[in-house]
């Protein structure tokens, strides 16, 4: 009977883990966490003529960017005027960079957006380890619940107990 119980729980956990795979993947995507690459240097180039376009309300570059923790954001300025982004000052023809070492949704003031703000979403990289962690966190309790539910619906019976004769 003990073996059957263990097998029932193991089967429940296996089913829970399997079901958790699509659910955790959906959850990561729903949260917008889809960056599975390792940290690297990301170059953002401010094209020539940006300042003139921004003055007329035109958007030249995307408003939001997604990074992973450890990325280095290098901003290269091909425009003819100085641009700034948060702590960075980028003279024409030069670059400046900052390390993105902390998780979070950052909003920096900048001079190359009509809104004067740029959003930087710094995420934990969606690695295999993080996926497995998500599957384990969701799958194991789900599996235990399945096993308990199955015990209610279909209890494990002792083989050695013979029903009493009426």
């Amino acid at each position: 009977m003990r073996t059957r119980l263990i097998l029932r729980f193991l089967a429940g956990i296996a089913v829970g883990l399997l079901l958790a795979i699509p659910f955790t993947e959906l959850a990561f995507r729903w949260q917008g966490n889809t960056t599975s690459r390792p940290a690297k240097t990301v170059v953002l180039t401010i094209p020539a003529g940006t300042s003139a376009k921004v003055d007329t309300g035109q958007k030249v570059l995307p408003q939001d960017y997604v990074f992973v923790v450890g990325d280095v954001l290098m901003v290269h300025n091909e425009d003819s005027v100085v641009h700034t982004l948060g702590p960075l000052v980028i003279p024409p023809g030069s670059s400046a960079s900052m390390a993105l070492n902390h998780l979070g949704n950052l909003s920096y003031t900048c001079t190359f957006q009509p809104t004067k703000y740029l959003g930087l979403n710094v995420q934990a990289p969606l690695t295999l380890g993080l996926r497995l962690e998500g599957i384990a966190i969701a799958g194991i309790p789900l599996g235990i619940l399945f096993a308990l539910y199955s015990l209610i619906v279909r209890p494990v019976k002792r083989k050695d107990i013979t029903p009493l004769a009426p």
Partner: protein
Amino acid sequence: MDRKLFWVVTGILLVIAAAAGAATIINHLPHSFNGSVINPPAPAPDFTLTDQHGQFFEFSSLRGKYVFLYFGYSHCTNACPAAMALMTQARNQLGSQGSQIQVVFVATDPPGDTPQAMATFVDRFDPSYVGATGTQAQLSAVWAEYGVVVEDGGETHSDYIYLIDPSGNMRMTYSQPITAEEIAADLRAIMRKV
């Protein structure tokens, strides 16, 4: 006895050689800068304003020195004095090398930042500092050249410390949070390479 002395002297020489080797390696390790590095260094725009003594001040006259350049207003009670104190501490941290650094404070409130007001402000930190002011038109041109945003009559302004090298190139910028030790460490690394 002579043999013992030989080994003692050899041991001391080996320790000195190892220390010298380690110091050389440490000196040549790439420094991880605490400020934002401008790469390649860009020429710092020149400007002519009026200093706290009412004299013409030409920024390019500081070639040959390192310059900390900061934009603020003389009656500021928070960010500007904090930045001035930070630059002063960074200079002090550098000991004798600190004298190679000139601090320049450029006005963001033309009507309020008179030469007298600038003198009172910079003298609180070091009378050798330059407090540069000018007309709205003169200062607006300088702000634009350095990417400084000034609003609310000068009381809201960008909070950058620019580091300019003796060749007149912008090398780094600093913004809060940063410590004097971090700025001084960057300067030591830059000075070592020049």
